[in-house]
């Protein structure tokens, strides 16, 4: 057990009670730092400790916790990442959503490693955080404002320009669209906490935005992190060249070439090469990218601005690969200018592009199959690009059928005939992103067991695209579980996933053990740091089992993934039939030390030093 907190930590947790405006400061227990490390681990503990297991995500008892990690604001590249933790309005389970930019580094310098919003404000507010604490301020004049407008208005009001770092909800968040996101506009780039509905949770608390101003705290690593960071730069830059030049949009062409890129709500998984080229990173770079953008302290600069000069759209954020899947290929819209415009609309209104796109694609297939009335809404035909833009407004404002779409595909399906379930693409209430649940075996079991449901940041697809566990189930359950440890560790370090996978490796390895040891002064092995990831993942599972949303029945895949093989192309015939999933689940639970129903056993809880968390959850 650690006796003192390493000086790389700011050392404090700031609790903000929105009902009264009062705050309290809690010291970080050094043993919690050793067990949970930061970021993902810290917000998991806050959610476990403070949210009753029967609380609705929109109840004031839900919290929104925002944490940074031990290496944030150090010499290490690409660590200005923040993690939000909350109970998701989509999954009803624990959710962590990360974002980049400059706010996370600013938060670190306040000394507050974790900021927790409790309760609900009486009127629309924003929360300003400095090293002295927090102030809850009126934001009534910001009601209905878009995200960028909100960031600008708060910067203007505080009078320090971009030195006030703002994370804001759009109208979608205020209207509790279940997949409302939060957008951070910094001087260097935009960052989006996209998934799971963090914007809706903030909206339910009557909070329009969180603003942070820098303080004087500087982390003091125990070892020479600067020298280690310099040593890593060469490989890091070499291995992230694709991201530097094309952003994540560079994935469109190769993933389509593999025949693993969902089209028309997954009715098929490969489009003509001309279609893929039209929305590819190569085309966006050649015709629309105007400049590279970056998070604080990151040389990779994977962010891009794009402009459509003829339409007066300038310096919009480039659509990410996942966005191109949700709003282009899933809709059969292969026009890059529409992809840019829809993405910009979603950013402005505060909508997660993945859940929005997949929900609309689901509705469009239901409409096609006659499960939705002809006059229920315009714009429900595949290929309707203009209609997609129109639907963003209707969803964000909950107007007409937009009110149904705002609930997400799973709740919409529940209101339709049983057949509708055959067209869902997601699990545990969260729509899947671009990485094929049929064409990548590691994603099949990875999605089914993901804390967040349809998340590609629990089990990652990266190594699978390089030929590992993409087409075999042998050893794939263990692979998926250990990658989940890797992502939980990385999100507890709050290190950029893209850069860490490229520069450090896609599994927990000595690079991670050395970095954590240098930062904290703890002498940790590779096994030790992987166990941190395992512990955090198991804590998430404990929260979700206590809430009754995670067991063998819910660790499942949608009908199409289990019953309809990919119909054509290089991945033709691939899917995950129920018996294959059952075999992988059994192997997965055994590897994890969970019982047959997918619950961590007492022995596992003890091995991972989670007895206190299990005890807390049993009384929530």
């Amino acid at each position, binding site marked *: 057990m650690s006796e003192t907190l390493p000086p790389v930590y700011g050392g404090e947790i700031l609790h903000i009670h929105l009902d009264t405006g009062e705050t309290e400061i809690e010291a970080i227990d050094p043993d919690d730092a050793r067990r949970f490390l930061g970021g993902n681990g810290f917000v998991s503990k806050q959610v476990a400790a403070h949210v009753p297991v029967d609380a609705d995500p929109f109840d004031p008892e839900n919290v929104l916790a925002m944490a940074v990690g031990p290496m944030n604001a150090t010499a290490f590249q690409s660590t200005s990442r923040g993690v939000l933790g909350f109970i998701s309005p989509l999954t009803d389970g624990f959710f962590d959503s990360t974002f980049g930019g400059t706010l996370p580094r600013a938060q670190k310098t306040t000394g507050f490693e974790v900021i927790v919003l409790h309760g609900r404000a009486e009127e629309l507010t924003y929360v300003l955080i400095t090293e002295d604490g927090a102030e809850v301020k009126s934001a009534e004049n910001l009601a209905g404002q878009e995200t960028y407008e909100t960031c600008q208005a708060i910067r203007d009001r505080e009078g320090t320009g971009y030195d006030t770092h703002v994370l804001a909800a759009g109208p979608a968040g205020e209207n509790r669209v279940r997949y409302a996101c939060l957008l951070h506009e910094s001087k260097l780039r935009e960052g989006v906490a996209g998934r799971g509905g963090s914007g809706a949770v903030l909206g339910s608390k009557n909070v329009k935005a969180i603003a942070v101003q820098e303080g004087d705290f500087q982390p003091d690593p125990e070892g020479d992190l600067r020298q280690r960071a310099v040593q890593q730069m060469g490989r890091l830059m070499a*291995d992230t060249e*694709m991201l530097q030049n094309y952003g994540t949009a560079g994935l469109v062409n190769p993933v389509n070439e593999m025949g693993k890129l969902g089209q028309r709500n997954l009715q098929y998984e490969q489009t003509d090469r001309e279609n893929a080229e039209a929305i590819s990173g190569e085309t966006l770079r050649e015709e629309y990218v105007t400049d590279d953008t970056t998070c604080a302290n990151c040389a990779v600069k994977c962010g891009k601005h794009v402009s459509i000069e003829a339409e007066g759209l300038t310096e919009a954020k480039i659509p990410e690969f996942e966005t191109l899947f949700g709003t282009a290929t899933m809709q059969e819209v292969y026009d890059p200018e529409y992809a840019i415009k829809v993405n910009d609309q979603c950013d402005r209104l505060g909508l997660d592009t993945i859940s929005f796109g997949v929900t609309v694609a689901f509705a469009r297939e239901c409409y096609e199959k006659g499960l939705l009335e002809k006059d229920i809404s315009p714009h429900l035909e595949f290929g309707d690009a203009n209609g997609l833009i129109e639907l963003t407004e209707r969803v964000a404002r909950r107007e007409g059928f937009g009110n149904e779409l705002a609930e997400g595909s799973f709740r919409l399906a529940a209101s339709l005939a049983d057949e509708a379930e055959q067209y869902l693409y997601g699990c545990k209430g969260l729509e899947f992103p*671009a990485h094929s649940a049929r064409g990548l075996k590691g994603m099949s079991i990875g999605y089914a067991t993901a804390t967040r449901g349809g998340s590609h940041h629990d089990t990652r697809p990266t190594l699978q695209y390089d030929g590992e566990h993409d087409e075999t189930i042998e050893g794939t359950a263990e692979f998926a579980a250990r990658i989940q440890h890797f992502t939980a560790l990385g999100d507890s370090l709050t290190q950029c*996933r893209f850069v860490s996978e490229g520069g450090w490796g896609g599994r927990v390895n000595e690079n991670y053990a050395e970095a954590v040891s240098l930062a904290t002064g703890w002498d940790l092995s590779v096994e030790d740091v992987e166990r941190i990831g395992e512990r955090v993942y198991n804590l998430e599972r404990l929260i979700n089992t206590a809430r009754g949303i995670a067991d063998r029945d819910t660790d499942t895949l949608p009908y199409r993934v289990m019953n309809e093989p990919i119909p054509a192309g290089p991945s033709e015939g691939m899917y995950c039939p129920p018996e294959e999933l059952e075999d992988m689940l059994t192997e997965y639970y055994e590897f994890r030390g969970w019982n047959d129903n997918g619950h961590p056993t007492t022995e596992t809880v003890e091995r991972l030093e989670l007895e206190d968390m299990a005890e807390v959850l049993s009384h929530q």
Partner: protein
Amino acid sequence: MNIELRFFATVREAVGERAITRKFEADTTVRDVLSVLEGEYSALDGMLLDDGEVASSITVLHNGVHVTHLDGSGTELVDGDRLAITPPVTGG
């Protein structure tokens, strides 16, 4: 025989073309094609092969299938095949 070669991302920048179709001798392997490309495009020299195997800095898809699932750099090609050469798929 004719082989279609498709290039993505930074490999495309090095070649300067989206795709080309080239004639190769019968029994040509992936290794042979990569070797020819390394010799022909200076920006690719040393990038595609490492001791005769596909370098870790690139991914090669044979008719959309990762060559690691076939015979790697020894994968034999037939007339009309398609090779896509791309940096490893990262991010997303």
